């Protein structure tokens, strides 16, 4: 009983900051958009049928899953060595290294864009080096397109991947790696045969979390996509603030939310199954 009382403020905040706007959003998604673009109060599923019947929506869903799926996978793959290194460090360094790994979270989206511009831009570091070496004579576009967004998203997801992996790998007994070594396995075989299989649940958890974050990512596709990258989050923004079609924007937001909830449930199921197996 007292537990419930203590949870009340948090529940209240959640209700006000999350559920109420969500209910409003759902209500708006049921309104009608007239021929001239004005919003008419109604209770209709027109926006949903219009969106689901539009092949562009499905393209957006494909784009979104493709982008976040690959970015999340690369982020997790790159986070794994980092997490293993942090785990292997002495306790004195571990905290500092973990802090460094998640430090990018403290940098704003705009600051990141400036940084990536200096690296990936037409006059950026990579292009300058490529030209100087003589490999290219015209700049290769690595920003303001899918490549840029993928790189930017991967970078912004990596800290989360590191955090999830650190939590997951914490339960991985380092004696197992030592045991493999004493049985004659070199570092590579130990990694492939012991570390990797045992890290699989953590890798999956990290991938699912970063996938969800990637799907809902807005800033990176918006800032680094150069108007060439169309995903659900940017389209919701366009519908709401450029086309001013609120019912469609709200309906798409509800679809996205439904998809994310489905993914979280999936993640919960995976966790539950792993819990049962262990």
């Amino acid at each position, binding site marked *: 009983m007292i537990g419930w009382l203590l949870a009340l403020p948090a529940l209240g905040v959640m209700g006000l900051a999350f559920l109420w706007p969500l209910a409003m959003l759902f209500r708006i998604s049921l309104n009608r958009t007239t021929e001239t673009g004005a919003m008419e109060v109604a209770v209709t599923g027109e926006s949903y049928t219009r969106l689901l019947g539009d092949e562009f929506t499905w393209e957006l869903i494909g784009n979104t899953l493709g982008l976040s799926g690959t970015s999340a996978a690369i982020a997790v793959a790159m986070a794994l060595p980092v997490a293993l290194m942090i785990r292997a460090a*002495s306790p004195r360094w571990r905290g500092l290294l973990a802090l460094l790994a998640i430090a990018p979270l403290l940098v704003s989206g705009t600051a990141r864009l400036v940084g990536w511009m200096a690296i990936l831009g037409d006059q950026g570091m990579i292009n300058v080096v490529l030209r100087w070496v003589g490999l290219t004579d015209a700049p290769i576009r690595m920003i303001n397109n899918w490549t840029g967004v993928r790189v930017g998203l991967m970078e912004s997801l990596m800290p989360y991947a590191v955090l999830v992996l650190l939590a997951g790998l914490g339960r991985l*007994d380092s*004696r*197992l790696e*030592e*045991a*493999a*070594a*004493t*049985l*004659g*396995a*070199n570092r590579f*075989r*130990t990694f492939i*045969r*012991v570390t990797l*299989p*045992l890290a699989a649940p953590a890798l999956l958890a990290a991938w699912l979390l970063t996938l969800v974050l990637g799907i809902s990512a807005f800033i990176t596709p918006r800032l680094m996509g150069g108007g060439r990258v169309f995903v659900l989050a940017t389209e919701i923004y366009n519908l709401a603030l450029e086309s001013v079609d609120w019912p469609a924007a709200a309906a798409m937001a509800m679809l996205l939310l439904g998809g994310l909830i489905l993914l979280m449930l999936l993640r919960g199921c995976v966790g539950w199954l792993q819990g049962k197996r*262990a």
Partner: protein
Amino acid sequence: MSRSSPHLRLEQLVRHYAGAAAPAVDRISLDLPRGALLALLGPSGCGKTTTLRMIAGLEKPESGRILVGGRDVTALPPHKRHMGVVFQSYALFPHMTSVGNVAFGLEMQGVARAERGPRALAALELVGLSGFAQRKPRQLSGGQQQRVALARALAIEPDLLLLDEPLSALDAKLREGVRDEIRALQQRLGTTAVFVTHDQTEALAMADLVAVMNAGKVEQLAAPEEIFERPATRFVATFVGRAARIQGRLEAGGVLRTEGGAALRTHSSLAAGPVEAFLRPHRVRLLAPGEAAPTGMANVLDATLARRVYTGEIVALEANTPAGVITAELHAGTDGLWRELQPGSPMRLAFRDTDLLVFPAP
């Protein structure tokens, strides 16, 4: 390699841990003949596990050398050392079956695929687990896991078998059985082995040689009887086996005079001065009223019974004497004299001069 040269030789091994003032392992040297079982015995933090890990290659010594069969392995990484290690927590691979765990080592040693299965199963049979080959570690009891770990370590026919507190995770009833099994297997296979323990009974029961360690140093390296009967240092005398402590001054002729006024004969050749002597409870004899001390028992003390602790086979009598509190342990069944005694009863205790283990006072 000559037959007389040791199979394992440690030379002046040193290992510090960052931030620690004293070295964890401080210039340890020892030799172990082929086929022998060495116990590294000591309290926690004495450096015994660090020594074992350095032998396995899991930690690097700062200086010193490790030789196996005359070959210097100090610089070799663990996967090139060909040593079977049984970890305290067993460290079985949870994603592999029992036979998979054993076959993993064979695979890493380059054993042909066709040979691995039969050899892994044979190793499991050796430890009496042939019926559990397809079980995952979590489906096995602690004792079974322990035996899989042993089978895994032995299957690769290691140059050296290393066991880190192999029995500590087992419950007391299992421990003795597994202890004897390990010893029997090791002797049957002729494997040279080192095991770490803080349990003196385990060390004495299993080992051919015991190295008693304290604060990073080997206090004594000897056969179990020698360790128990003739401890080289005061630390060994107190750490291995129980003993009553008698304080006093050693006088000419090896007579120990206690503060309580007793004069005890000893076999000590120490110079005169303050000393401490230790007396094992099972060495002390209880004399019947009027009974003369048996031949050779030069020391007889008048005493008063303080406490009687009966544990079935053994009864311990704690007595106040002029030499301090001395405990006598008697076989409860064969020696009936104690039954008459109540706390406060007068009694007489006898022991040999050689039973007193005398060391200079610290």
